[in-house]
């Protein structure tokens, strides 16, 4: 092999190696200076908790104010103790009427002896300290013992008892007129069972109607349309573009042009809240929508019954 060809091979190898080394060096410098060592993982999900009982958080001052029982001493020391002479023997004396569960605060609504109390974590009612909230169950402690209380536990017992009593009531004689009246009454009650109505400020959505839409999201899409409302690239809610006239949705008080800014107190600044809302529809008993109509902020309250 001539000296000339030898030097040509060496030169070629040097050129190749140099190219590879420079490439490696360039990437090493870029990776060291600009590229991250770790990726981004999806953040842990939180779920939007539906309101299980209608309670207007904005207007009910007792929810925001600390609860002070009438007979409680003036100076309240944390944890707040609400004393009363009669101590319930069982936790069943409490009716767990509703809850508000958000990342910031957890509140429960308890009915006891015809009065309604709103408790946050750490507060005490009749010696029972509200310690935690797990799903639909509020956990109380007293004298080191744990007392779980399910939502609507007492109410359900009551309604079951009522239902039993009505079934036990003897029926009318088999007269045709009475049967017709019964049928008419049944039809009317069936129609009424699917009619959205107002009770004060609250819109009552019949459960059968609610379930009908809950299982058919396409039907919802046909009746109402809302799109994310963006301001400077940041989502600030959902703008209602369309509400079908005469549809059930037109009876919900939502109008074209409204901007839904929060659901159950959770601001609609991302898609997760509405998605969680739809996911939890099957357990939802009440909801509060905060909407912006022009310059006015309104609260629309709904209860599923």
């Amino acid at each position, binding site marked *: 092999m001539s000296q000339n060809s030898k030097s*040509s091979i060496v*030169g*070629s190898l*040097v*050129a*190749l*190696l*140099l*190219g*590879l*080394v*420079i*490439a*490696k060096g*360039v*990437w090493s410098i*870029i*990776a060291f200076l*600009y*590229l*991250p*060592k*770790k*990726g*981004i*993982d*999806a*953040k842990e*999900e939180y779920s939007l908790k539906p309101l299980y009982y209608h309670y207007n958080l904005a207007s009910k001052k007792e929810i925001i104010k600390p609860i002070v029982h009438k007979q409680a001493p003036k100076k309240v020391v944390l944890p707040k103790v609400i004393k009363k002479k009669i101590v319930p023997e069982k936790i069943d004396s409490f009716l767990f009427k509703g809850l508000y569960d958000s990342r910031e605060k957890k509140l429960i609504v308890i009915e006891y002896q015809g009065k309604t109390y709103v408790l946050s974590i750490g507060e005490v009612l009749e010696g029972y300290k509200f310690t935690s909230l797990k799903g639909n169950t509020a956990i109380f402690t007293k004298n080191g013992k744990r007392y779980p209380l399910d939502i609507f536990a007492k109410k359900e017992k009551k309604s079951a008892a009522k239902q039993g009593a009505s079934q036990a009531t003897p029926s009318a004689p088999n007269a045709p007129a009475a049967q017709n009246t019964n049928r008419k009454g049944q039809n009317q009650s069936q129609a009424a069972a699917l009619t959205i109505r107002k009770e004060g400020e609250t819109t009552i959505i019949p459960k059968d109607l609610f379930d009908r839409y809950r299982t058919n*999201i396409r039907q919802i*899409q046909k009746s109402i349309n809302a799109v994310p409302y963006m301001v400077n690239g940041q*989502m600030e809610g959902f703008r209602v573009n369309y509400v079908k006239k005469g549809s059930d949705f037109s009876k919900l008080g939502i109008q074209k042009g409204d901007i839904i800014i929060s659901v159950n107190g959770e601001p609609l600044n*991302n*898609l*997760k809240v*509405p*998605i*969680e809302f*739809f*996911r939890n529809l099957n357990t939802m008993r009440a909801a509060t929508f905060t909407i912006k109509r022009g310059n006015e902020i309104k609260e629309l309250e709904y209860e599923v019954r």
Partner: protein
Amino acid sequence: MRLVKYTLLFLAALLIGLYIFMPKTQLYYKAEEFLAQKSIVIGNEKIESDLRSLRLLHPVVYFQGADLVRAEAVEIKPYLLINSVIVTNIEPLGIAKELGNITIENLSLKHSVLKPLYVKLESNGTFGEANGYIDLKNHFLHIDITKPKNIQPLQRVLKKGEKGWYYESKF
């Protein structure tokens, strides 16, 4: 003449070196950072990298914290001059599933340095076959449904043109 030969060899080696030694995983992490600024997060993925490509297995795409779609695999082939991303078996999740249960069998995105601000896309799935492009300069997406099959769930967002159904959006 010899200098030209060495220079060409050097450039070829540089190009091959840039391709072989490309820190694909770290570049993917950087892309994740850019996507995160748009509230898009790719999670749950298993990353496999070799000399040729980067593979993401079973990634879930989250938008604003909500899981939207899951894919079986994403293969990214960064050939520098011609780059491609091939996504297989994309299925909707959560509310996206409720709104229109459409699955995409294959989605292919191709980018060439000859047209740096243009990405060509081809896709097929339960809706039929589609192709289109992304205009990166004008932030514009156009997709033509070339062979429609079951487009009913998509009709709400599609427009009808002379050539058939199409989708357009600005981003």
